[in-house]
């Protein structure tokens, strides 16, 4: 196993842990996209370009986007149904977790 592949395995493990440790849904989606991107690099290094293509397009572009839309839709519904004058932040911000892998 070459150094490159070992490093990529570590990167996949690190970003995967980041997905599990992210508590804010929006950040988790971004962490998931980062995980998909590192998986793409790993598949490239393992000489599987077709799988890398699929992972890049589905795991990094399409799936996070659908999740983001769902989050936006849920928040919009919540904002519409909440009585006026009680405009609180829709998602409570928990303590920042390490390895979120995405800027706030």
């Amino acid at each position, binding site marked *: *196993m070459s150094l490159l592949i070992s490093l990529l395995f570590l990167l996949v493990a690190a970003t995967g842990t980041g997905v599990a440790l992210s508590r804010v849904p929006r950040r988790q989606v971004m962490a998931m996209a980062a995980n998909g991107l590192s998986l793409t690099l790993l598949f490239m290094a393992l000489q599987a*370009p*077709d799988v890398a*293509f*699929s992972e890049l*397009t*589905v795991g990094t*572009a*399409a799936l996070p*986007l*659908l999740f983001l*839309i*769902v989050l*936006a*839709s849920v*928040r*919009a*519904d919540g*904002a*519409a*149904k909440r009585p006026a004058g009680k*405009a609180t932040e829709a998602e409570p911000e928990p303590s920042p977790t390490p390895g979120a892998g995405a800027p706030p």
Partner: protein
Amino acid sequence: MTPRVRIAVFALAVLCLLPAFAHVAWHMPPFGAHPLPYGDAINAAGTRERHVTNMISAVNFDYRGFDTLGEEFMLLCAVTGTSILLRGNRGERVDAPQQVPGRPIRDRSDGVVLIARLIGPVTILFGLYVILHAMTTPGGGFQGGVIVASGTLLVFLGEGYRGWRRLMRSKLLDGCEGLGATLYALCGFASMLAGLPFLQNMLPLGEVKDLFSGGLMLLENLGVGMAVAGGFAVLFLEFLEETRVASDGDEEESGG
């Protein structure tokens, strides 16, 4: 269930499963081992038998073309189900959907617009390239189709929702999805009309490394590309419609 109990249950499960896991992990073939004769056989015979250099396309569209037909219809069913669930009675007006009150829509920065306008068309073009070169280089109908659909999202980033909706005619996308899947199935029946088994490659195979080599695989690849591009675009459209307020013709949600 308190966190303490949860962790105790987790630890118990780990203790029970660890021996089995360790046994399997210990007896796995070493990293990079290649005990699979099927791939070698395809690599050895594929170019000679099917005149294509991308063996994955040869497997997907020819050697195991029937599996791909099943996957094609799985995608069709998934997209149809999503559309049935999400689509109200919305029409084709692109100016009707409005933003939900209370949800501010910030202006895009000029940089985002510039980058999206530069990269969007190139991405769509690259997707078409990937679909077209399925027989010679990595990629194919599925990958290229998703790239095309993702490229339209850059149009959304660059032009905003209305400009994007002017591009995304849902009747056109529905047709793309359905016709692509139909084209794939018709390829199979065309073989049967010629007196051959279902999906048997009966068109002239062409020359190796030529863009239009592979015979019937070309048509099947085109069908998959159309179906995937249309299907993903329909998904994006139906999902993004969810962030808009319902227009007059839309059915009202009960309660709330």
